């Protein structure tokens, strides 16, 4: 047993898991607010990262300005997407809604490949020190920053939903659209806001991952990895999404460890979350924190 490696992998897992958690949270936000399963969540990361990359290396902007501009762009992008494509789908059967987001995901993935190429593009260096040591482990500083950002985002989310009027309105919409509407809440606006927030926060995650691994089409795989996380946590629970993300992140790295130490199958860490996914669906289809659907005849 290689304890040092194990510890390193667990730390990696926690850090990546936090990012999964953030993306899962965005996914759940959209699902709760507008009952849409967003298969294009990964493309939000992809587009955010590419836009930021382009602003940095194309226009030579400082990082802070590029980052803020990216957020602004993603906010507008999210609203536009909701208004133009998803709004006509309200009330359509679930398969149509799923397919629309899948169609969007194909479209944006291909568009990104066309515009920015298929090769990994590294971000220009942002920090002086590439990595810091923590408990004797080398951890890349951007990952630490990413984790800090992720935690900040989570706290901001909590404050937003607990304290602001808009947050309250969004919770009301998620709880019951008709009641919310009759109380004077503009449901359409809430939908648009939820998409904007989701796109912006996903872009943050995209930029963080992009800075570490470089930007490439691989980023959109985050959108697929989110599914085990949200199913584990429960589709309609934000806390569950964060926890699910963490668990999936750690699990991946543990699978990698077990693979490298004993099993020697290779590439297990990519597929392990999906086995877990099937298992969870069989045992607890509504996840750890999700609402259990009780049907009475």
């Amino acid at each position, binding site marked *: 047993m290689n304890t040092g490696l194990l510890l390193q992998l667990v730390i990696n897992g926690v850090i990546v898991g936090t990012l999964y958690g953030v993306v899962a949270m965005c996914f759940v936000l959209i699902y709760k607010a507008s009952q849409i*399963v967003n298969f294009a969540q990964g493309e939000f990361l992809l587009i955010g990262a590419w836009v930021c990359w382009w602003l940095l290396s194309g226009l030579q902007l400082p990082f802070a300005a590029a980052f803020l501009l990216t957020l602004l762009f993603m906010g507008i992008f999210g609203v536009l997407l909701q208004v133009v*494509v998803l709004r*006509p*789908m309200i009330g*359509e059967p*679930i*398969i*149509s809604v*799923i*397919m*629309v987001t*899948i*169609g*969007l*995901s*194909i*479209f*944006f*993935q*291909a*568009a990104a*490949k*066309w515009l920015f190429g298929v090769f990994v593009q590294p971000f220009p260096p942002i920090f002086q020190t590439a990595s810091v040591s923590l408990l004797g482990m080398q951890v890349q500083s951007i990952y630490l920053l990413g984790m800090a950002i992720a935690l900040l985002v989570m706290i901001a989310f909590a404050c937003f939903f607990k304290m602001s009027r808009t947050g309250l309105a969004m919770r009301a919409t998620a709880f019951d659209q008709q009641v919310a509407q009759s109380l004077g809440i503009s449901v359409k606006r809430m939908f648009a806001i939820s998409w904007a927030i989701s796109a912006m926060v996903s872009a943050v995650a995209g930029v963080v991952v992009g800075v570490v691994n470089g930007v490439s089409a691989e980023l959109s795989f985050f959108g*697929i990895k989110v*599914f*085990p996380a949200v*199913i584990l946590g429960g*589709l309609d629970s934000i806390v569950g999404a964060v926890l699910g993300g963490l668990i999936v992140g750690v699990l991946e790295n543990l699978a990698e460890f077990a693979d490298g130490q004993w099993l020697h*199958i290779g*590439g297990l860490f*990519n*597929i392990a979350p*999906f*086995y877990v*996914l*099937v298992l969870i*669906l*069989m045992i607890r*289809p509504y996840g750890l924190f999700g609402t259990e659907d009780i*049907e009475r*005849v």
Partner: protein
Amino acid sequence: MRPSGQFKTSYRADMRLFDTPASRGFCIAGLLLLAAAPLLAGDYLLNLLIQIGYLGIAALGLNILVGFSGQISLGQSAFFGFGAFASAWLNNELGVPVALSIPLAGLWTTAAGLLFGVPAARVKGLYLAIATLASQFILQDFFARAEWFSGGSHGAQAQPFSLFGFAFDSDRSYFYIVLLWLMLAVTAAANLMRSRDGRALVALRDHYLGAEMMGVNLTKYRILAFGIAAFYAGIGGALYGHYLGYVSAEGFTILHSVQFLGMIIIGGLASVMGSLLGAAFMVLLPEFMGALVSGLAALPGGAPPWLAAGLPYLREMAIGLAIVLFLIFEPDGLAHRWRRIRAWWKLYPFSY
């Protein structure tokens, strides 16, 4: 010609496969035309027709699962690939003749489909869609890993179809094999919907609680629908494998699965003919994009070079865009459009 109202007086007449003699006539005429296609059409067109054939069979299976029984599957391509590998394996390793290995591969894929359909016993809707997503990735991983089955990263060789010493190794002859299987597939699907089991599937989709109270065994039919879809996918995949002569694990990705879903949505959910129309649309769309780009390049000004360089991405984008646009503007698909045209023709010149 179509009747101008309901004149049927017995259930038998109502359940007929072809509701008028004319529609039967048209169907037979269409089949004869298809049978003559190898004599009339060039190699390019024939190749497209064969593609439409084997993809159409798999799309039809998916339509039975998604359109008729209302369960979403994101893993059809994995079963398509499974069929291709299974048929090649049966032929290469056990020496089963190709003519027999195709249906056997279909049955084997059915077993896999039943296995991966088991989550459907417990979950439905969205959760089921995500479970099938997992099955797509698990099978894809299996293809890349299982050297004995798929040849791993090298892929597997598939021998050409042969019967009684005659090798169907040209497009011209193989077309008839695909046509035969397509006919069988369409007939079976159309008849399934007239049977007790088919009605159970539709009841499951429309109101599963009601269906359960009527005595439909939900678990059985949910899993059965997966089995049927997998059988069709397996047959389609086996035909694909023996057509290309080589099966590689790389092709059966989630994108390919989505294309199958795109076919049935563009063609029309719960429509047998729609599945084939959708398959034709999905095969012709990339060709159309290619023709469009080369047509633009041939114009006097010429197309900018980035347009031609982006052709593979343009094709993918067109597929994504087609799915989105169809869902927004024509959610019932091409089959519905066809029904509208027929109604217009029937009522002409008085449209109401």
